[in-house]
């Protein structure tokens, strides 16, 4: 199991980013005109925090490009829902298509950025995000494997450690995999980390954290070049 040998009591008792703040930081990675898919959980909060002045075209795997904000009470149309079954609005220039074309977009390398939640990310960029070992019931994959395989840039948003304090960034995933060597960047509540050919490169740390403290809650070696800047929320 991940986190073996790491004790809860060695975790620094420093403030971490909230889920909303993780989403806010990850949103700064998006650029004007990008086609973007947001997965369940933290990624789905990112739409609220887009950098000012940019337009991003949100993709939904049920066949929408150009989703806007969620529908307000009274304006919901339950034939116009996102992949989480939530009624959404459209922005000008939106389009509908069938689910095979929607996943042609995910798998075929057409999305500029996809953002997924994660249970574990390995130092090679392997992602585990669909199944907890020993969980009851059938589990479910959804669109995550197609998205992981195909996005030009894959960002994972997650807490840096489990509730028990075990690192979620590990040498090798022990949870069932979603995809191999697919993650480009990890945004957590304590760091921004890039998965580069030479290894995991620490790009930013949460305010008040040092590189060493982030390393202490990480299950794989981090490469920290010079001074690491603080995460800023844009």
């Amino acid at each position, binding site marked *: 199991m991940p986190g073996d040998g790491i004790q809860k009591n060695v975790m620094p008792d420093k403030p971490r980013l909230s889920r909303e703040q993780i989403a806010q930081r990850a949103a700064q990675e998006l650029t004007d005109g990008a086609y973007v898919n947001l997965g369940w959980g933290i990624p789905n909060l990112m739409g609220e925090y887009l950098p000012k002045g940019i337009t991003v075209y949100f993709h939904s795997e049920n066949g929408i490009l150009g989703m806007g904000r969620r529908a307000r009470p009274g304006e919901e149309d339950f*034939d*116009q829902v996102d992949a989480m079954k939530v009624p959404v609005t459209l922005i000008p220039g939106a389009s509908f298509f069938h*689910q*095979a074309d*929607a996943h042609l977009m995910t798998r075929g390398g057409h999305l500029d950025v996809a953002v997924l939640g994660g249970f574990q990310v390995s130092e090679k960029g392997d992602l585990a995000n669909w199944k907890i070992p020993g969980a009851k019931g059938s589990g*479910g994959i*959804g669109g995550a*494997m197609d998205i992981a*395989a195909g996005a030009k840039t894959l960002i994972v948003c997650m807490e840096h450690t489990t509730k028990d304090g075990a690192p979620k960034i590990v040498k090798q995933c022990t949870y069932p995999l979603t*995809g191999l060597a697919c993650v480009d960047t990890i945004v957590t509540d304590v760091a921004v980390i890039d998965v580069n050919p030479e290894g995991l490169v620490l790009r930013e740390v949460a305010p008040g954290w040092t590189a060493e403290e982030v390393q202490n809650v990480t299950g794989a070696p981090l490469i920290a070049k010079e001074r690491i800047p603080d995460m800023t929320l844009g």
Partner: protein
Amino acid sequence: MKQKVFASLDEAVSGIPDGARIMFGGFGGAGFPNNLIQALARKGTKNITAISNNCGTREGELGLMFKNNQIKHVIASFPGPHANHFQDRYAAREVTLELVPQGILCERMRAAAAGLTGFYTTVGVGTEVAEGKEERMIGGKRSILEMPIHADYAFIKAQKADELGNLTYRLAARNFNPIMAMAAKMTIVEAEEIVPVGSIDPENVITPAIFVHRIVQAKGLRYAG
């Protein structure tokens, strides 16, 4: 002209035998053929192999089929958090499940529709999904072989059907419906509206009539989850 329009939902599902393989359109509450599903529940067809993105929402959508124990095997991508009737049957080993990545579910159905006998993909390589599947390197990419998913029937929800079977879909209620309509041997459509031949602009037809075999007016149950 061949008559494809059926007078009732019950007639539209007539002749479906026990053990049939049936695709069910719909995603996220939208585009489910809920009225046809209810007719199939009344008919009581058993031992169905269902192909569907999810496994129902409480008693709605496919939930009714699992509640009635009409399904013995399901090929799905995401059974879903509210598929309690499915989960109960699954825990009791009354139904078996093949989990498929969502886009690969689409592609395998499309392969059946298009007469392809298999395809290679990088999706699922190194995961549980790849277990038991042939793997090889193609162009430097680890790829696994996926096989077509065929079906005897597709249950489809359309917005408009003309009397020949040309279909349109409303907004994101399109989802899996056009793919399943192409993939099954017999496609049965519940349409919100049945319109005269010629009233859908040929450029705006989403599912051409060649893929449609039976049409029935939906009786008003649009959302059932």
